[in-house]
Structures are given as structure tokens and as C-alpha cells.
């Protein structure tokens, strides 16, 4: 009997001793106190050489019977790229640094489909839900019915996050043939060395990319190679209530363009009593706390990370703690503290920010949201979610920025063709990608959802042509992207741990809204972000 009581006491006791003797360091540093790499640093290469290195190094660290058998997650092209051994990149840091010749990357045998004997079945992992999933299903049904060579099976993973996580954790066999991933996963996906670059398919197929917006292509390129095909492109726009604008004595057709106008309009809305709040903001990493911060840096024509946003070489420092960041965070802090703005906090799927516009007793007049939500928002208003707002009361304007420029970064997601699935599947996936990105599909998709078409010729194709003509709100996001200048700052950052860094800037924003000091909060976030970058580089052979 005494033993059964002694055990817990002992365990609890030692637990407390250990806990109290520690200095309250961050969990991020656990196991790092004296870094003793169990494996020799893996040589990251752009073409999958050094795979053997990785394997042996693995065998050292991992237990026997390791489920991730060597080779499962290996880069493609083991057999197809013997030349890779001489790749100049082997000794250099990975990815972005050196432009990779396409020959060293997995091939895209686009003619394999023609010689395929039967129907080629491919699976597509996507993250589209609700109405968006229905539209994607409709397009895919149309594709499957239009020909007999390829049959696409959609597999809804529940969201972008899940697509990324499941893909990274899957072995070669359980991976899909095609995957949809958001813009913040580009570097991480690219560093898996498990995709056929879309550029290879474009080249092999002599595919005409001239109608495709360069901004969209640039966003999904790394090391001079276009890795994925932009498909559902979106960017943030300003949603506002025209009725409240009119009541406040503002021009309902003239939404604010600069941050000063945004503040002035918000104050006028509040002081006139037209609404309780002006701008509604949030602190979600996927919107107000992360994605929009990057957008605002682009609008200010500033880099948010060094090495040209991580595009000329892997980024090593985040720059958001500089003057631009301090100004921006101070602006947002003042806006909310003065009562002209309202913070809804974490804003999963953008819901809370939109719902604040629909609040009956204490509404906000404006919020920033992704253009991709426009179709859903209008449907929700039609469904009666906002008793005081009619469908035509909702205005859409470009996202306001420091100097009123149209600049936006490409958001949304792109299509990644998975390598090592066999020539026929690669060719089939490319054929489906071509279908999804053709002018007709893009026109249908954009008209139904509010996403931005990736190509200019979709604008003159029905149903988008008449949609834009009849409802200019749908065109705002396209116009912003189309007018985005061809500058390095306007392409957006390419960071390995981009998602985690957005979580950090979002935390900093929440801290600032809670009354925290702007410079301190940003500095703390920047220090942690730099550690993440260094950690990522160390793991990827930097």
C-alpha cells in the first residue's frame, strides 16, 4: 500500500523540482542548450542530390523500425537527374539563391498522356470548402465529362493548413498527384524536392503563359523557376457599408484609399453617430495580424525580410520591427484605442470581422477581407444575416495603404504537380491544371466566387465579362492586382517558416491592441522570427 502512494509523490516531487529549477525559457529552445547535431548537416540541393546523405544521417538519429522509411520523402529525380551531382548548388544554401536549370529538376513528359492506354486516374488534394468546393466540383465534373483520358478525384482536406500538414507528413505512396497550397507554403513545399515544377510542363508543352498575370507567376516562383500554377488568386479589399457612409456625410462611392483617409473617415463615422465604429480590424495570422501586414509593407514599397524578401537569397532577418512596422502598428493601435476602430481579435475564416458589420446594436462600417469571400458575403447578406444591410449596400474598394497605391500581393493558392507518380499521372495532372487555368474555367470560377482570374483574357470571356459589367465590386481585386507595379517589393516574401512568422506578427498586434509597447512587441517578435529563420536554414542545409 505504501508503495502505491509513494510513487505519485515521488513523480510529482521530481516534476516540481525540475520545473522550479528552470529559468522559464521558451519551449522553442528545448533540446537546444548545447546543440549537438545527431546527424551531420544534410546537404540540401535543388535537385535532390544528397538524398543519400540524408538517409544515412537519418539512420543515425532515428530508432530502428522508423516509420518514415528512407526514400519515402526523398526528392524526385533520383534516377532522372544524374547530372545533378555536378550542380553548383550543392555547397550553397538552398533554394532561392541560385537559379536552377530546369534540366536538373523533375521532368514533365506532357506527351505521355497521348500514349496512355486507358483512363488515367489522378487525385487532387484541395482546401476549398462550402460554396467554393461546390464550384470546384462543378468545374471538375465538367472536365471529367469532357474527355476520357483523365479522371480527377477531388479530396477535400478541410483547409490549406490540413493540405500542407498532411502532405508534409505523407510518404511517397500516400501523396496525391496534385495538391493545392497557399502562397505562404511556397518555400516549404519547394524545399521538399517532391514536385514537378510547372515551368517544366510549360516548356515541354509550349504552353502560352503570356495572358497570365506576371504578378501571379512571380509569386509562385523560386530560384527563377515557376513551381506551381496560380489558380485561385485573391487579395484583400475593403468591404464597407455604403448606407453608413451616406449617413455620416461621406461619399458612398469614394472609399478611403490612404491610411489617413481611413482614419478620418472612421472618425467621421463615429462622431456623426452613423455607426458605433469605423474600421473593424482583427489579429488573425491569416488576415489582419499576418497577411495584411505583409500587404502593407508591399504598399509602402518596403521589404519585410532581408535579401529582397528572401527572393535573392534565403532571408535571415525580418525587417518588420523597423520604422515602417512601428508606424503601422502605432497607427492601428491608435485607431482602436481612440474608438474609431474595433478589434474583433482572432478572426477564424474572417467571420468575426464580417459579422461585426452585421451587428445590429454596435456595428462597424468597414473591414478588410479577402476578395475570395465576396461571393459568400453577398450570399449571406441575401440570406438575411444582416438585417440592416441590403445586398446593394455593401461597397468594395481597394485595400487602403500608406500612400494610396494599388499594390497588392498575390494571395490564395496554387496547384502543385507531385513528382515520381509516373509519366502518365504527371501528364494527366498537367492536363487538368491547364483546364483549370484556361480562360473559360477562370472566368466561371471568378464570377462565382470573387477570386481574381489569373489571366487577362478571362475578362472578355462569359460569364465573367457580364459579371464585371453588372457588378463592379467583383472587379476591384483584379484591378488592384493588374495595377500592381513591377517591383521587387511587390512580389511578396518567400520564407521557409512563413506561416509561423505570421503567427508572431499577429501575436505582436494582439499585444499592441492590449496596450503593449509597439517597439518592444515588434522587437520581440522579430527576434523570435529570426530564430525561426535560422532554425529553418540549419535544417535545410543552410
Amino acid at each position, binding site marked *: 500500500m505504501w508503495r*502505491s*502512494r509513494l*510513487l*505519485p509523490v515521488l*513523480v*510529482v516531487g521530481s*516534476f516540481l523540482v*525540475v*520545473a522550479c*529549477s*528552470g529559468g*522559464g*525559457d*521558451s*519551449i522553442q*529552445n*528545448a*533540446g*537546444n*542548450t*548545447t*546543440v*549537438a*547535431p*545527431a*546527424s551531420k548537416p*544534410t546537404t540540401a540541393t535543388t535537385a535532390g542530390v544528397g538524398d543519400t546523405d*540524408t538517409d544515412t544521417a*537519418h539512420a543515425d*538519429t532515428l*530508432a530502428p523500425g522508423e516509420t*518514415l522509411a528512407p526514400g519515402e*520523402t526523398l526528392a524526385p529525380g533520383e534516377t532522372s537527374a544524374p547530372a545533378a551531382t555536378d550542380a553548383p548548388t550543392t555547397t550553397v544554401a538552398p533554394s532561392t539563391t541560385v537559379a536552377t536549370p530546369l534540366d536538373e529538376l523533375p521532368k514533365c513528359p506532357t506527351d505521355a498522356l497521348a500514349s496512355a492506354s486507358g483512363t488515367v486516374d489522378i487525385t487532387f488534394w484541395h482546401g476549398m470548402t462550402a460554396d467554393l468546393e461546390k464550384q470546384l466540383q462543378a468545374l471538375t465534373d465538367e472536365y471529367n465529362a469532357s474527355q476520357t483520358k483523365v479522371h480527377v478525384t477531388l479530396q477535400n482536406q478541410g483547409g490549406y*493548413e490540413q493540405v500542407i*500538414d498532411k502532405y*508534409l507528413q505523407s510518404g511517397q505512396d500516400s501523396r496525391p498527384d496534385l495538391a493545392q497550397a497557399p502562397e505562404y507554403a511556397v518555400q*516549404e513545399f519547394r524545399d*521538399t524536392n517532391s514536385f514537378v515544377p510547372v515551368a517544366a510542363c510549360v516548356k515541354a508543352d509550349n504552353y502560352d503563359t503570356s495572358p497570365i498575370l506576371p504578378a501571379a507567376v512571380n509569386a509562385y516562383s523560386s530560384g527563377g523557376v515557376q513551381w506551381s500554377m496560380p489558380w485561385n488568386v485573391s487579395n484583400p479589399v475593403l468591404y464597407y457599408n455604403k448606407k453608413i457612409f451616406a449617413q455620416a456625410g461621406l461619399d458612398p462611392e469614394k472609399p478611403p484609399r490612404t491610411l489617413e483617409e481611413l482614419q478620418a473617415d472612421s472618425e467621421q463615422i463615429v462622431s456623426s453617430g452613423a455607426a458605433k465604429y469605423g474600421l473593424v480590424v482583427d489579429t488573425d*495570422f491569416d488576415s489582419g495580424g499576418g497577411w495584411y501586414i505583409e500587404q502593407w509593407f508591399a504598399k509602402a514599397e518596403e521589404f519585410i525580410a532581408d535579401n529582397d524578401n528572401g527572393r535573392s537569397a534565403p532571408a535571415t532577418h525580418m525587417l518588420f520591427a523597423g520604422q515602417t512596422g512601428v508606424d503601422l502598428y502605432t497607427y492601428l493601435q491608435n485607431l482602436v484605442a481612440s474608438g474609431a476602430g474595433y478589434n*474583433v*481579435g*482572432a478572426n477564424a475564416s474572417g*467571420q468575426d470581422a464580417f*459579422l461585426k458589420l*452585421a*451587428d*445590429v*446594436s*454596435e*456595428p462597424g462600417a468597414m473591414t478588410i477581407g479577402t476578395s475570395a469571400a465576396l461571393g459568400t458575403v453577398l450570399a449571406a447578406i441575401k440570406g438575411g444575416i444582416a438585417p440592416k444591410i441590403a445586398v446593394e449596400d455593401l461597397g468594395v474598394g481597394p485595400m487602403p495603404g500608406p500612400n494610396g497605391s494599388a499594390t497588392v500581393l498575390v494571395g490564395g493558392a496554387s496547384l502543385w504537380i507531385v513528382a515520381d507518380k509516373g509519366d502518365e499521372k504527371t501528364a494527366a495532372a498537367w492536363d487538368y491544371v491547364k483546364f483549370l487555368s484556361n480562360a473559360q474555367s477562370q472566368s466561371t470560377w471568378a464570377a462565382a466566387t470573387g477570386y481574381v482570374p489569373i489571366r487577362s483574357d478571362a475578362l472578355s470571356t462569359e460569364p465573367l465579362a457580364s459579371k464585371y459589367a453588372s457588378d463592379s465590386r467583383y472587379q476591384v481585386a483584379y484591378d488592384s492586382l493588374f495595377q500592381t507595379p513591377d517591383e521587387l517589393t511587390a512580389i511578396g516574401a518567400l520564407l521557409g517558416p512563413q506561416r*509561423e512568422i505570421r503567427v508572431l506578427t*499577429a*501575436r505582436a498586434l*494582439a*499585444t499592441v491592441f*492590449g496596450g*503593449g509597447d509597439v517597439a518592444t512587441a515588434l522587437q520581440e517578435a522579430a527576434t523570435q522570427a529570426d530564430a525561426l529563420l535560422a532554425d*529553418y536554414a540549419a*535544417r*535545410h542545409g543552410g
Partner: protein
Amino acid sequence: MKRRRRDAVLALVMLGPSAVILVAFVLYPLARAVWLGRQRCDARAQNCRTNGFRQYVDVVQSREFQHSLWVTVKFALLTVPVGVALGLGLAVLADRHLRGVGFFRTVFSSTVATSVAVASLMWLFLLQPSRGVLANIGWLNQLAPVIKRPGLLNDAGTALSGVALSSVWANLGFTFIVVTAGLQSIPRELHESAYVDGAGPWRRFTNVTVPMLSPTLVFVGVVLTSRAFQAYGEIDLLTKGGPVPQDSTSTLTYLIYGSTSIARSDAGLQSTVAVLLFVVLLVLSVVQLRGLERRVHYGN
């Protein structure tokens, strides 16, 4: 001697199948997690490096782990006593032979058929500050302005209680059913003789019902505590561990698996915390079962 050997062989054959299953699906994964917990890996569980078992000490000493452990303990303290008390109260109320009591029994036990996801979403819609039904009742706003601004789940001080509310509600059906079964196994004669002895309803409740129910109540308490320590769905759906930067609802399970958790993309770190959570739960179960065992009345 010969016979003993034959017995041993027979025992091996009989135990073999379940032993294989136990090893393959319980012991091996557990050992694997312990092993993984001494490594730091990337999102692909590759490029691992290790600093040995020192990592467990580092994690126990880290402020995130200690914070999460404290949040988890608070969550258990909020949900378990209230959950047991409500379940017991409802079960006693419904334990009568009255017309229509079946209807109430069905209602009280209905949440057992509600999944965590459904329950959480329901509460999320009820508590949504702008359009949620509960958040926009005038007198409730006057009483507790936090429900409207910033919202029960958005305020660092009340978020954990909000999640606990949803959790208690969702677990009520289970508690109700188990306690009801316990009540029905109490011999009627005990109540009757207590009644004859002149004991009032309250006296009968404290001196007959509760002691006779104690094994059931301990069982319910252990299960609810274990559930509280492993709660994930309601936290992910309602608060995502937030509000930040206080991380008011970031429990140990959320630290392991949460979408905005700092350990999210590191299988090694996740294993470390998971193994530590296992140790915590193990100790807790031993304490609860052994410590309370002696005070439990099992009837004669």
C-alpha cells in the same frame, strides 16, 4: 516440472495474440514517442537532431509548458466539480417514478449523442459577439458586458470559463446516464428504512444516496478529469488556444497539436509534451483511484 513447462507454453499461446496487439499498438508507439521526444525535427519529421533526454527537462522548465499545465489544471478544476454536481443533481431530480419523467431523462442524456464538434459550434454561434443569440440579449449584456464586448470567448479573463461551459454541457449526458444507473442500483430498502427512522430528503441524500453512489461518483470524476486533461476539440473550435498574447486557453493538448501552437511543426517537441502529459495523467489516475479508494463505500 514437465507440467509447469507445458503450462508455460499454453500460457504463451493464450496470451500471445493480445500481447502482440498490445505491443504493436500500445507499447511500441509509446516507446517511440518517448524516443521521438528527445529530438527536434522539422515538419516532415526529418532533419532531426537530439540533445538526449535533456529535452524533457528543458520542456518541463519552459514557460509555455508550465503555462499550459496551469491552464489545463484550471480547466479541470472548472469542469470536473461542476460537471459531477450538475450530473448528480439532474440524475437525482429525474430518479422518480412520475408521469413524463422519461421525457426529462431523454433530454438530460441527449448531449451524450452530441459530438464535441457540434456542441462547440453551437456554443460558438450562441456566444458570437456580433450576431450570437446569447451575446445580444439586452439584460444579459447589462449583467455581464463582457459577453458583448469583447465577447466571452475573446476576453482573456473569461475565455477559459466559456470553453468550460461548452465542455460541461457536452459531458452532462454522460454523467447523467452513469449516475442514473448508479442511483437505480441503490436498494430501495435503505431509503425506506431511513425514511422510517425519520430522515428527511436532504438527510437521505447525504447519508444514503451519496455514500452508496461514491464508487460511481469517483468513476465519473476520474473520467471527467481525464477528459478535461485531453480536451482538444472544443478549444480548437472555440478559441484556438487564445486569446493571444495571454494564451488563456492553451492547454497541454493544444500545445501539442494546436494550429497556432509554437510546437505545431515539430514532431519531436510534440512528442515531448505528449509523453509529459501521459505522465501527468498516469500520476493523476493513480492518486484518484488509490487515494479515494478507501473512502469509497462499496455496499455490502
